């Protein structure tokens, strides 16, 4: 079972949670996709690596994670048998809502880079919560700071 973390931002929140799941959070700041708005704009899946449990881990950003989950369920349903199914983990960590707003502003021409830096800074400010969410997913624990499924 491979995993896809879906958050409202891919190169900020979902990336941090995914690296937390992989126990590679120290790589966040040096990651080539951290704050990369070109990657964010494509909406493509970002491959993060293979976890110790053998799961291939991906992340992606989408304004509507619940719709991404539904699309994936529909794809699996239409496909019938899926040999390597992808389990989607929609995540929303309380207190990190401003990252999404900053990431949208980061797409503006001319001033975008300024907001990209702010979004990265905000992500690092909330890094502990985001990373622990990923760890909690791995442990199958829903703690106080754990990511919760979106409605």
């Amino acid at each position, binding site marked *: 079972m*491979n995993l*896809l973390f879906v958050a409202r931002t891919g190169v900020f929140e979902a990336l941090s949670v995914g690296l937390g799941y992989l126990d590679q959070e120290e790589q966040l700041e040096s990651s080539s996709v951290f704050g990369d708005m070109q990657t964010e*704009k*494509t*909406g*493509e*899946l970002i491959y993060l690596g293979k976890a110790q449990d053998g799961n*291939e881990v*991906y992340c*992606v950003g*989408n*304004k*509507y994670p*619940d*719709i*991404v*989950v*539904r*699309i*994936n369920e*529909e*794809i*699996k349903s*239409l*496909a019938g048998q*899926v*040999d*390597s*199914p*992808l389990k989607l983990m929609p995540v929303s960590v309380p207190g990190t809502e401003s990252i999404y707003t900053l990431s949208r502003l980061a797409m503006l021409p001319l001033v975008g880079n300024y907001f990209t830096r702010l979004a990265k800074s905000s992500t690092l400010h909330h890094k502990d919560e985001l990373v622990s969410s990923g760890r909690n997913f791995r442990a199958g624990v829903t703690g106080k700071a754990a990511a919760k499924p979106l409605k």
Partner: protein
Amino acid sequence: MITIKVIYFDYGGSHSSVVAAHIHAGKLESSETPPIEKIINLPYFDKTTKNDFGKIRRVGTDTDGNDIHVLGTKNGNSGGLLSGLVDAQNLTDKFRFVDTMPYVNTWLRIGGWLSRGPSLPALGRPLIRIGILQAYPKLVTLVREAGKTSLMEVLQ
């Protein structure tokens, strides 16, 4: 015979994707633009609700036996996401996603929003009519490119 699922997608899954899917399924003419009433009366055309986002809805089958579907993603740029989802599950050979967003003109954009957003179809549908008639020849071309050999024979 190996068949695939061909999924036409756009933001709402209401207009351009529905028309393209019906062209592909042979339910709309490809040689000339059909009467607008025929388009408006298509299943799913300008009828979707917010609960339909993310649902893959079947429209029909093409001449090769491929199932034709429509999808509204509530996102203007979903090609990478959809390809990624099937790639990561080794399903690439079973699906083909066709983006109709590049053919959504200003009339369709405004009309579609008025009709499906604030639920003002009386205002939106006249604009949708103009927009879909303008887009129709381009959607036929798109379907030709997305289709397979025998489909192309039908279209030509």
